């Protein structure tokens, strides 16, 4: 089936099979390997991408379902070779270790800050509870989101 959607700001037209998952289209066909296959059943959040601006699980969405919609992945963040402030904050606070969960966390955090630019720690933890990290724990991840939020506030 032919679908057309906006991926990281670019219009894309691709042929997909009905049983093809969005995650596999991104990773295997389009070369965007940021979103990860973790659990495959909607528990770990490693495959999180933004669909029309909202965080969703790309391992539980058919590629055909995004026809006409907008998809953003970690590869779409940052401009002109510069990292996104959230990415910077994750690095600075040591919120990354093996990095497997990081794209999912950052995309979810991106959506959080978009709708709530000054979240409390509780709100951050609640919003990110669908993303699992097995290396760093969550303290530094929460710090990273707070840091990015503070910097965004300082800039505006």
């Amino acid at each position, binding site marked *: *089936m032919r679908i057309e959607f906006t991926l990281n700001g670019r219009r894309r037209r691709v042929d997909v*099979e*009905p*049983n093809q*998952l969005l995650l*596999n289209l991104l990773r295997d066909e389009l070369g965007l390997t940021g979103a990860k*296959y973790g*659990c*495959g*059943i*909607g*528990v770990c*959040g490693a495959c*999180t991408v933004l*669909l029309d601006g*909202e*965080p*969703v*699980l790309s*391992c*539980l*969405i*058919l590629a*055909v*379902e995004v*026809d006409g919609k907008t998809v953003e992945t970690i590869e779409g963040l940052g401009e002109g070779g510069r990292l996104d402030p959230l990415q910077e904050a994750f690095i600075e606070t040591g919120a990354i270790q093996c990095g497997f969960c990081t794209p999912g966390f950052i995309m*979810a955090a991106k*959506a959080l800050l978009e709708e709530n630019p000054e979240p409390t720690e509780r709100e951050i933890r609640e*919003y990110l*509870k*669908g*993303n699992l990290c097995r290396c760093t724990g969550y303290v530094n991840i929460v710090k990273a989101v707070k840091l990015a939020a503070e910097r965004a506030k300082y800039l505006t």
Partner: protein
Amino acid sequence: MEINRVNTRIIPFRFEYHSPSSLGEALTILSRYGSEARILAGGTDLLVDMKQRLVEPRHLVDIKRIPELRLLREDVGGFIIGSAVKLRELERSEAIKGRLPLLHEAVSSMGSVQVRNMATLGGNLCRASPSADAAVALLALEAEVLIAGPTGAKRVPLEGFFLGPRATLLRPDEILTGVYVPYPPEGAGSAFIKLGRTSLDLAIVNIAAALKLRGGIVEHCRIAMGAVAPKPLRLRNIESLLSGRELTPEALEEALGMVEASIKPITDIRATAEYRREVSKVLLRDALKTATERCGGRRS
């Protein structure tokens, strides 16, 4: 055929994908393919099952592009919520939060934000899980389900919709189009409480209570519990015990004493039947307490 049975990376079989843009079109497709077709809404349960080949539909009918199933609107004395409305939309709706706080509390507690951005209210009901959070809240709100089929539309109480785990009244050629949720009486207080292993997990036991007091006397009382029987349950015997009485410690003790006989919990991966029996009483006590505190419009 054992290959890929537990591989959750792909959907290991082919099917035809349909994306009707009207209800009529969707019903025609369902009539044509019968039990070979499955309705796809949020996909958070169905696709997980398909990955494991627990179901292998030849046709998927995606109902998310049917405008009337995505409507959330006020109707006479209540709300009509389209079956394809996402949980996250209900969570964000000020109208739902203000007029149906019990439903708002239940849907806000479900899954992660990613899941709530995908999962639909209709999907939660049609899945007919004994622990369905939204179902428990909607039972206590005395909701009705709206069903469309080849012979027309009908409206039935939600309580009769569930037949058992994963079984509902819906026939293969019918679609749940929405839910009618009447407003609880003015001044009623409500509480939804879920006990889970983590806040992300499905409920070990959940409860919804709606209560209205007049001069200390219980005037309106609705209680529903989940994960304690083959389907979400209204606890009518406890409702009638408390109705017309003052909520004294004695009345409460009497109500708690009736819990065990009213439920039929099983032992599963999440908890033992014995634990569920015990904790159900605690949840009933907590839910009635919180609902009472919220009576008269106060809500923390």
